[in-house]
């Protein structure tokens, strides 16, 4: 039923990168995330699926404390990155976000050149010793973002002049340039056409070699294609979490089955 290019999925247990325990999120009076516990493995693509408004994006934004920028959001529970609580007072959210990069739903290149877009992160974190070093970082990031060949001749053209799919790959390259350990993707393909989507999905599969990738998606086919682990959210609850193949072929919870067969959502 689902085309699964990664059918020879390696299901052996890997290191746990992020552990979430009993996470609750409130927006003002609204209880958006209810007691979610999940373990995200290293060098694995984890997909969050679920109907609109089920809290999957909210939970994703907890993982790099992007909810801090929303005044009324309140997060409870523990989220550990490599065993350290990221909501600890000693943790600097700015440093954390350099380690846990993020790609957004709509491509959001800065109004700068392609080069400056990618060099933005390395520059603010002082990652390059000199210009040549920075050039190399930018080239490597663009190559990892699978966009180098398309833009290598116009690195100083504005990033906003690229097509939607190119912009999104540029944003992925920009996130990769700061050498994060985890890459969070919030519906990265929802604004893209099928061809651009296929390119980004291929890219996600390659990124798995170096990073732990967490992707929120509305498309169940996409979750089945790119992920090894899938978490199904419904009304703020984590309903089911497990190996992607199992979730899609033999879900344990009736709500999961109802969702993937299209009866709720």
């Amino acid at each position, binding site marked *: 039923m689902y085309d699964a290019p990664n059918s020879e999925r390696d299901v052996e247990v890997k290191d746990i990168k992020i552990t979430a325990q009993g996470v609750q999120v409130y927006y003002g009076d609204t209880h958006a995330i209810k007691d979610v516990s999940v373990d995200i493995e290293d060098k694995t693509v984890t997909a969050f699926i679920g109907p609109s408004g089920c809290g999957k994006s909210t939970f994703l934004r907890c993982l790099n404390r992007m909810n801090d920028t929303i005044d009324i959001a309140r997060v409870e529970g523990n989220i550990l990155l490599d065993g350290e609580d990221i909501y600890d007072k000693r943790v600097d959210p700015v440093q954390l976000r350099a380690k846990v990069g993020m790609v957004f739903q709509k491509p959001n290149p*800065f109004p700068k050149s392609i080069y400056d877009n990618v060099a*933005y992160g390395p520059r603010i974190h002082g990652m390059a010793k000199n210009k040549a070093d920075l050039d190399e970082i930018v080239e490597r990031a663009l190559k990892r973002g699978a966009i180098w060949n398309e833009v290598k001749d116009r690195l100083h053209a504005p990033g906003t002049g690229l097509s939607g799919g190119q912009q999104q790959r540029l944003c992925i390259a920009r996130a990769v340039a700061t050498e994060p350990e985890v890459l969070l993707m919030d519906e990265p393909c929802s604004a893209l056409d099928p061809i651009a989507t296929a390119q980004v999905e291929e890219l996600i599969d390659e990124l798995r070699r170096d990073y732990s990738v967490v992707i929120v998606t509305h498309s169940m086919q996409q979750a089945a294609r790119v992920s090894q682990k899938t978490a199904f959210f419904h009304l703020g609850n984590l309903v089911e979490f497990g190996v992607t193949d199992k979730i899609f072929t033999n879900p344990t919870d009736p709500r999961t089955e109802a969702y993937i067969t299209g009866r709720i959502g």
Partner: protein
Amino acid sequence: MPTLWLVLIVVALGGIGFVLGRGRALASAGGDNRKLHSLPSYYGSNVAMKTIMPAMGVLVLWLIVQPFFVDATVSKLLPDAAQSEDTTLGLVMSDVRRVADGLDFAVAEGLLSPDEAQALDASSDNVRETLGAAGVALGSDVSAEVLNAAQRYRVLSATGRLFMSALVLVAALGGCAWGVKNSHMDYRARNVVEAGIEALLVTAASLAILTTFGIVLSLIFNTIEFFQRYPASEFFFSLVWSPSFGGGSELGLLPLLWGTLYISVIALLVAVPIGLFAAIYLSEYAGPKVRGVAKPLLEVLAGIPTIVYGLFALLTVGPLLMSVFGREGLGWMQAGTAVMTAGLVMGIMLIPFVSSLSDDIINAVPQAMRDGSYGLGATQSETIRQVVLPAALPGIVGAILLAASRAIGETMIVVLGAGAAARLSMNPFDAMTTVTAKIVSQLTGDADFSSPEALVAFALGMSLFVITLGLNVFALYIVRKYREQYE
């Protein structure tokens, strides 16, 4: 018939037409709303519109054209002899109008009967005394020609007004009848009313634009007249401004322009950093509560009349600067009125302009930009400096240029704060003056309006207009050019 009555009658006819049209349309549908093409009130509005709009158009046109027509006819009656050497036709005509108005007034007060007013004779009756008794003072005795012309003027005006009343009423009644006749269930009254509303809006827009043209034209004619009496090269390149109404003045633009630009630059140096930083704080850092209080408070500054700022400059800032830079202090400043005083106060005046516009522009930068930057581990100020401000820059530049044209056109603060001496000096603590302040001083007092000393005001105004227009066009160009890129 007085014009006000005429207007009221036309409006009343419109009201009657509304009721008639509405009733007739409903009757044609047998009282069933649903069979009508439009809602019943549209049929009423259609008739009211057709009654009022053409009648008002006729009224306005007639009121504009009639004085020209009467003036032209009456001035032909005046023999050339009536114009002595030191007067012009225009002056005689204004005498004629004054006498005619006086006669009107005397008739209205009951001092003269209408027939007596027309029968007055300059040789036998003392017109000046008669009118004086009615409270209309005349400067000199009325000559026979002027009295004749004034009597003719009254007759023509009265006839004109009679015709006008008749024509307006005919137009109103005709429009009303036409509208009522059309009020049938199939008539598309809704579409007609829509067209009528569009016509109304177009009229309003073109009035605003035509007024601008009128202002520019009057400036241009007077400027041309000035340059016929005073060499343009002297005006643009002379370094001295010393008008003397006895003649032999030097009217150089440059000292005034220098003062204007110097004061504006100081004002912008104050307003741009403070306004911009305030805008950044309000839009990026302040919580909703602080913002809710601080933003209106800041905008109160924009509502203060500039004359109050002028008083602030004169009474507070000037003495304050004197105590530091004056004779007791550093000794750079001779008096409280100086470029620095006016510049500082004008800068304070411009803060809300810069901050309010910039705040809107910064808020318009999409949240996705900020998220993208935070998601890469940037701090708030890094995000603002490297992402938000570059994205908002064209708008901010536009805001600054608008503030600059405001500064260049400012008058009252300069009059009170910068002194009146036109001089070319680098010292910001010297008194200087600006183009606008000199326009005021050249046109106040009893200057002869045909002398270059008075006409120079129009040339100054024109130069100022060209400069601010250029700045505004440049601001718009910048905003447009860069806006496309960032969306």
